[in-house]
Each structure stands twice: as structure tokens, then as C-alpha cells.
């Protein structure tokens, strides 16, 4: 094994409950900076729940409880002094279904920066352009920036949502099955984009598509029934899994 690079996120003894039922059990893992980490596993295995714990989106669901630590840049995100709003500014998220606001393309991207006080028109213009370029959608929308985002195709909307998240200049980008509502061509573009994004961001992506995990990720974590079964370099997970369950899943014996 090579020396472990410095993790940007380390999760320690994480347990998560929806009311009485336990959704995640004793999760321990480290996410490496500037890499793409894929979370795979059958439906209901807790991978999406886990992802949403990383930017405290599960706080919004009543009756949930978290034990353990998520340490991001040396700070436990579940420490009493941490404001979830601040967490979400530094750890962005892209959702399963494209969810642009019913606003113009420009205003979608400018939404986050404006919330946090950026008013300067020139700076906003520049940031919007940079974000749209980073999400590989600039060329398609540069002439229609002030038209409604709802007029875009699904794949374009999803790249817009990525641009919107990128505009916050987060350190980590969480993606929750970002291509599950898209056609194969749009999916391929998003996958290309994910590989690009890791130059500037740490990406954690949930996917039910194992080929996608194999194509885009550096590290893969396999979840099963609320537990982390195995995590390692993607190539190893897919060619020489250490656990039998992992092997069964990636060879398609269940899931």
C-alpha cells in the first residue's frame, strides 16, 4: 500500500438514525483531496444518506440523529459550534434530478454568491462566466443568459446546477446520482465534467451505475445495508475486491 495522502474529510464512527431505525452503522472512511470518490451499493444501502451527512442536509429532516464525527479541514462538522449554513457554503451539492430555480440562467448561477454579499456587477459577470465554463455549458448558454433556466434540456439543467454549485467556490462537491435522470449522451458529458472538476475540487459522487463509478472515480466505497463494506482505489475494488459481498455486487449477482 502507498502512503495515505492527506484526507480532506475523515469520518469517524458515524451512526445515523431515522427515528428508531438505524440507517448507517459505524462508518469510518477518509476522502482524499482532489480526487473523485464514488459511493456505490444497492438501493437503500445508505449511500445517499451518507452523502447528505457530509454537508448536513439531513439536518432538515425531522427526527434524525447523528453520532460520531465528520472531520472536514480539522473541524468536526457536527460540533456544537458549527453552523450548518457555513458547512453548506464550503461543501456544495448537486442533486439527483436537475433542480434549477425558476429564474434566468444568470440568476441561477449568481444566486449563491449574491446570498453571501457579492453585489459588484462586473465581478458577478466574471464569476458567472467562469462557473459556466467550469461546468462546460458556457458555449451553449452564453447568448441566452437572461432566459429562464427551465427552458434548458435536462442535461443542460444539470450542468447549470453544477455551475451554480461551483460558483460558491466550494472545496468539496457532493453529487447524488447526478446522471440518473439523464440520457446517455448527457450522462457522458457529465462524466467528462466530473473528471475535469477534480483538478479544482474534491468530488464525492453517489452512483448506482458501476460502470460510471469505474469510469470517473479514483476511490470507491461500497456500502451495503448501512455499513461500509469496503473502500479502496477504484481499480482494486473492481478487479480484486477483498470482500465477498463486494465481488457479488460488482459482478451483478445482486443489487
Amino acid at each position, binding site marked *: 500500500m502507498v502512503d495515505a495522502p492527506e484526507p480532506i474529510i475523515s469520518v469517524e464512527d458515524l451512526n445515523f438514525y431515522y427515528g428508531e431505525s438505524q440507517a448507517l452503522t459505524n462508518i469510518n472512511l477518509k476522502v482524499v483531496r482532489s480526487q473523485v470518490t464514488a459511493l456505490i451499493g444497492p438501493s437503500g444501502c445508505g449511500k445517499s444518506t451518507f452523502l447528505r451527512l457530509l*454537508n448536513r442536509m439531513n439536518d432538515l429532516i*425531522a427526527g434524525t440523529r447523528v453520532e460520531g464525527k465528520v472531520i472536514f479541514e480539522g473541524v468536526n462538522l457536527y460540533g456544537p459550534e458549527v453552523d450548518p449554513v457555513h458547512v453548506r457554503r464550503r461543501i456544495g451539492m448537486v442533486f439527483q434530478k436537475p*433542480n434549477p*430555480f425558476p429564474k434566468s440562467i444568470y440568476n441561477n448561477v449568481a*444566486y449563491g454568491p449574491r*446570498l*453571501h454579499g457579492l453585489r459588484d456587477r462586473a465581478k458577478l459577470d466574471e464569476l458567472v462566466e467562469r462557473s459556466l465554463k467550469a461546468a462546460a455549458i458556457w458555449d451553449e448558454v452564453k447568448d441566452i443568459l437572461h432566459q429562464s433556466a427551465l427552458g434548458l434540456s435536462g442535461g443542460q439543467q444539470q450542468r447549470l446546477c453544477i455551475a451554480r454549485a461551483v460558483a460558491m467556490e466550494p472545496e468539496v462537491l457532493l453529487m447524488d446520482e447526478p446522471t440518473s435522470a439523464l440520457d446517455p449522451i448527457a450522462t457522458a458529458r457529465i462524466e467528462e465534467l466530473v473528471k475535469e472538476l477534480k483538478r479544482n475540487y474534491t468530488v464525492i459522487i453517489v452512483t448506482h451505475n458501476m460502470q460510471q463509478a469505474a469510469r470517473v472515480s479514483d476511490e470507491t466505497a461500497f456500502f451495503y445495508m448501512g455499513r461500509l463494506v469496503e473502500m479502496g482505489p477504484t481499480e482494486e475494488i473492481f478487479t480484486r475486491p477483498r470482500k465477498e459481498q463486494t465481488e457479488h455486487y460488482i459482478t451483478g449477482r445482486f443489487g
Partner: protein
Amino acid sequence: MSWHSLSARKMREALAFMVFRLAMLLVLLSLGGILLFVLIHGLGALSWEFISQPPRNSMTEGGIFPAIMGTIYLTLGAILVALPLGVAASIYLSEYASEGRVLRIVRLGIQNLAGVPSVVFGLFGLGLFVVFFGMGVSIMAGSLTLGLLILPTVIGASEEALRQVPSTFREASLALGATRWQTIRKVVLPAALPGILTGSILGIGRAAGETAPIMFTAATFYTLYLPDSVFSQVMALPYHIYVLATAGTHIAQTRPLQYGTVLVLISLVLGLSLVAIITRTRMRRTKKW
């Protein structure tokens, strides 16, 4: 099962269908009947003078201009009272309050408020606004009373409109580091606003036509003048109709004017509803979520 019983079942089905169709027809007929009746009797009274002049000669001549203006003032006043209050309450109910017993009781209270007879609102307004707060019989007191009357409608419409904003919008905003209030202000409210407004206007149409809440709080039998402040009394269409039909000394002579007034009032209310319905349909068409 024999063929015979099957056809009997078909007959029963046809019968039930006919009963329902008849019920619907009856509803339509009564609405159409009322409208036609008012139209036939009222159309003759309509003239430019009728809608632009005050009454003359013990109400037997002239027009209803002060009453039209009074109703418009009272309706606008009711909107100003009920819209901010109702929208704020519905934001609390649907965005902040967590489901539970307290919320159920509050909702029950609002539903019951909607069931309170309008004359009770009138007496309540008289006691609280006119007497206790010393507003006198005035536009102010009448607007507040009417505002309370339509509050449940506004809250209902707003809650419905807020509920229809997809939760994915809220999630997207929160995930960008917005606070709840920022999310409501910048994403949820703008998306819900058309629904809130049109839903509320439908309720407001009702306020425009109410007599009981304003008869003790705002309306006056007769004034030549338009109000000069919110503490003035006003004439109002529904009250005018009531007065002409029951308390006048020349009931027979004023009858054409009564029908004319009814026609104007109904047109105003239906017009308001029509505007709301058209706007809503148009906005639903452009809305894509």
C-alpha cells in the same frame, strides 16, 4: 351471473349517472337563472350617469358612484390587511412550524374562523375597532373587519401555493448555504406569489359582496361626498342594496336602481374572479415544474 342481472346493474348505473347529471344541471341552472334575472332587470338602469353620479331625490334618481368607490376602498383596505398578515401566517405554518399538536390546533382554529357567520365579524368589528379602538364607523374599521373575514381564505390559498413549490427548490437553495429565511424570500415566495395572489383575489371577491361585516363598521346610508380619509364613513354597494330594498321610503320607485346596483356588484365580483382565474391559467401554462 346471468345476463339479466348484468343489464339490471347497467340500468342502475345509468340511473345513478342521470341523478348526478341532473344535480349538476340544477346547479348550473340556478346560477344562470340568477345572472339572467339580474341582467334582465338591471340592464335598464345602467347608464353612464348611474355609475358616475351620486344618488338624488331620496335615492330615487341619480347613480351609485359613492357606493362603487366605497366598495373599492373597503376591498383594497381588506387586501392590505389580510394579505401581509395571511401570507406571514401561512409562511409560518408551512415553512417553520413543525407538524404536531399545536399546529393541528392552529389549523383547526383557522378553519373555524372561516365558518364564523359574517354578522359575528360585523359585531366583533363594531366592538373592537369602532368602539374600543375608537376608530368610529370608518373605512379603517370596515377594512380591518373585512380583512379578518377573508384571512382564512388568504391563509388557505397561500399555504396551498407554498406547498406547490417543489421541495427541490428549497433543497437547492439550502445546499448553497442559504438560510431558511433567505430561501423563503428569494426562492419560495417568488415561486408561490402568483398562486398566493390569485387564490387571495378569489377570496377577496367574497369580501366585496359582504353586507353584515360593514353595516356596523364602515357603511353609511347616504353621503354625497367621497371619503377624505380612512376615518370617513362610506357608502358601499351591498349595504346600498340592503338599504334600498328594506329601509327606503320609496321602495317601489327605487327598484330599478336596486337591480342596477346588484348588477354592478355582481359584475365587480365576477370580474375580479375572472381576472384571477385567467391570470392563474396563464401562469400555470408557463410554469414548468
